[in-house]
């Protein structure tokens, strides 16, 4: 598998923050997009594009996470043989 990130587990902290904050986030924000930097929940946005723009505006090329808020995460389905790639 090809490595696509110079820093292995680059989003580890952000993903942990998402997991810990999900009970609060899901209350009124199901389907929206959360922007997380480190342990900080920066904001919740209606679109992926908006969250990404704010993320780059504030954190430039630093690590940040944009994730769709789902109480139960829905898997994406691909009906052909492919190998999902992950650095974590």
């Amino acid at each position: 598998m090809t490595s696509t990130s110079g820093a292995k587990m680059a989003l580890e902290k952000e993903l942990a923050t998402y997991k810990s904050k999900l009970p609060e986030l899901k209350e009124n924000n199901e389907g929206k997009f959360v922007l997380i930097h480190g342990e900080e929940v920066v904001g919740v946005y209606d679109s992926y594009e908006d969250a990404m723009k704010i993320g780059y505006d504030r954190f430039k090329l630093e690590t940040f996470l944009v994730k769709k808020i789902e109480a139960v995460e829905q898997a994406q389905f691909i009906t052909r043989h492919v190998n999902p790639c992950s650095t974590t």
Partner: protein
Amino acid sequence: MPHFTLPILPAGPVMDAWVGVSEARRVTLVSLNQPVPNPVQIRALVDTGASSSCVDPSVMTTLALTPRGQVQMSTPSTGTTPHTADQYDVSIFIPCGTNPPLVRRTVGVACVELVASQGFHALIGRDILRSCLLTYNGATGFFTLAY
């Protein structure tokens, strides 16, 4: 609606596309006086069996991208348990002759290894197709994508 019509190849409805950094990343790179990687020309398959669009990791490496998220993915390769895939923000540009191109300036795509021998490096999934009209005319051997 702008549209293009192409022949259906043995691999399916395949077309040329360019994948580049997202608009948000491009603006940031310019503001930091850093070079903006040139978009990568690829072959892309229109795949109604893909709920989200996917791009091969070789493209992410060329664009010097780092993941901005993760998604769970189920494929015939993963069995019944979804696997984690990194998600990247990219732009996708599909030319259409003299008509306006199909452009998505900031879109999240999953990183999946696509076998090069299949002849494409990306799947255009239903996240992009939801704003398009796809006509697959097997009888004539052509497909049309309007957007």
